[in-house]
């Protein structure tokens, strides 16, 4: 069953819900190694996405994702705004004109999103950032699809890999962003950006399960 435009809108609504639920949790993670606003900023950003969504819901998937990206860029602030904003804008460009997505299309879109994040943030794997959750997730999804898995299975693998990547940020020394000024004091804390990225991937898998049921 392909992913439709309404699935994409539904996904953005679910993400807004999940981030609202995890607002305190993300902010708490951020207060240990950042400036204690990641949950607040992400929640504000996705509330803004919800406001912009009705105007583009009948448009193609590319337009919906690009609109979400612009909404994030203009409301999140900090580093997360440009990073998630660029991710959704690049995803939107990869989905331009499409009204349906096969599993392979979704993979290509996620790859484009990650490429955008890497271009904007210049982080490497292991720098204790969102890249540490997104990279293994996308690698796992690609591998699963290559081995004949369906979308739901592939997204489950992606979620498991994102979770592992997120947890693996705990012993790392931060090398990017505000947390990098802590040096060794950043060890022992889970990266908030990797955590929000994991939540975004997990929400995709949850939707795939709900759709299959």
């Amino acid at each position, binding site marked *: 069953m392909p992913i439709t435009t309404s699935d994409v809108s539904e996904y953005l609504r679910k993400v807004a819900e999940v981030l609202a639920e995890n607002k305190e949790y993300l902010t708490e993670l951020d207060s240990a190694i950042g*400036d*204690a*606003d990641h949950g*607040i*900023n992400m929640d504000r950003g996705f509330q803004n996405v919800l406001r912009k969504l009705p105007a583009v819901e009948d448009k193609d998937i590319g337009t919906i994702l690009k609109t979400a990206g612009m909404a994030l*860029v*203009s*409301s*999140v*602030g*900090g*580093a*997360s*705004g*440009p*990073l998630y*904003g*660029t991710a959704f804008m690049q995803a939107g460009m990869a989905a331009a004109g499409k009204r349906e997505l096969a599993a392979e299309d979704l993979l290509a879109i996620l790859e484009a999103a990650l490429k955008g994040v890497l271009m*904007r*943030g*210049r982080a490497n794997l292991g720098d204790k950032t969102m890249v540490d959750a997104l990279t293994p997730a996308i690698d796992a999804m690609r591998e699963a699809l290559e081995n004949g898995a369906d979308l739901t299975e592939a997204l489950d693998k992606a979620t498991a890999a994102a979770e592992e990547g997120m947890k693996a940020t705990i012993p790392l*020394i931060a*090398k*990017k*962003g*505000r947390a*990098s*000024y*802590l*040096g060794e*004091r950043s060890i022992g804390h889970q990266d908030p950006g990797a955590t929000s990225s994991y939540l975004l991937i997990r929400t995709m898998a949850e939707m795939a399960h709900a759709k299959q049921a």
Partner: protein
Amino acid sequence: MKKLINKPEDVVKEELEGMALAFPELIKVHFEPNYIYRADAPVKGKVALISGGGSGHEPMHGGFVGMGMLDAACPGEVFTSPTPDQMLEAAKTVNSGAGILYIVKNYTGDVMNFEMAADMARAEGIQVANIIIDDDVAVKDSLYTAGRRGVGTTVLAEKICGAAAEKGYDLKQVAELCRKVNINGRSMGMALTSCTVPAAGKPTFDLAEDEMEIGIGIHGEPGRTRMKLKSADEITEMLALSIIEDEAYTRTVREWDLEREEWVDVEMTDPPFEAGDKVLAFVNSMGGTPLIELFIIYRKLYEICEKKGLTIVRNLIGPYITSLEMQGVSITLLKMDEEMVELWDAPVKTPSMRWGV
């Protein structure tokens, strides 16, 4: 939390409303997106300077909008980077056709948001250059961190480059001058107390009654060390020597190449200070430290500079780049040449810096 505010979420909006009412002859304020701009913008034929960053550092940057300094300032939420839509709209408002220089403090969020804004402005046909200010010697390496933070030198760069733009420098020349100011400026700060972000409601960090943090950032980022409180003279010596004895600092920054029209990585090295240098000495209050203490610091700084063979040819003393109500001080030394001295002395008329007019 004890603050003279109404609601934490209204702090920035109400501050901007107050500023607009206080200085109608100098500045105008645009809301949603928020930016402060020169009342007489766009100034014909002049390169326009725009800066911005989180709020909470007043008077920087909004207080420096006006003749001889910035054309616009984009305030974010307290200690949060502004967003590209603010920077883009500000650029459209103040652009006279001579181009825009974004002066960006080196914080991950600020750098990325200004890069996006520059891309968006160029897509609309506006010429934009970005120069990063990264002068905080408390951060030693650039390889394993986001690099030195942008602090006191930002104020000096805005004044000097603002005067240059007023004099008719073109975009490339103003950008080169800004880079020169940045590599010749070094700063270091310290805190006696934390500050409280209104939305957070509690102090950013804990510092015991008899402790201080040396090398603090302007958002309360951790410094080099935390130690028992010392005398003003000893603190001044620690800060001044960290600056004066700092070795050559090399890092790579991403800049827009105006000729090649693409982002390029540029490697730059700050030359160390040498005996015989002429400097501007800037003693800055973090917000909660009064002038009486700043002069005690300046007195010792003057003595140390003399001993090290540095001649203070200009100074700036007061609260210019603050961290809300934090008690503490930062010192900036900027190596000056004749061109910079002349531009420093040029007339300026902004809400918070005004001379020669």
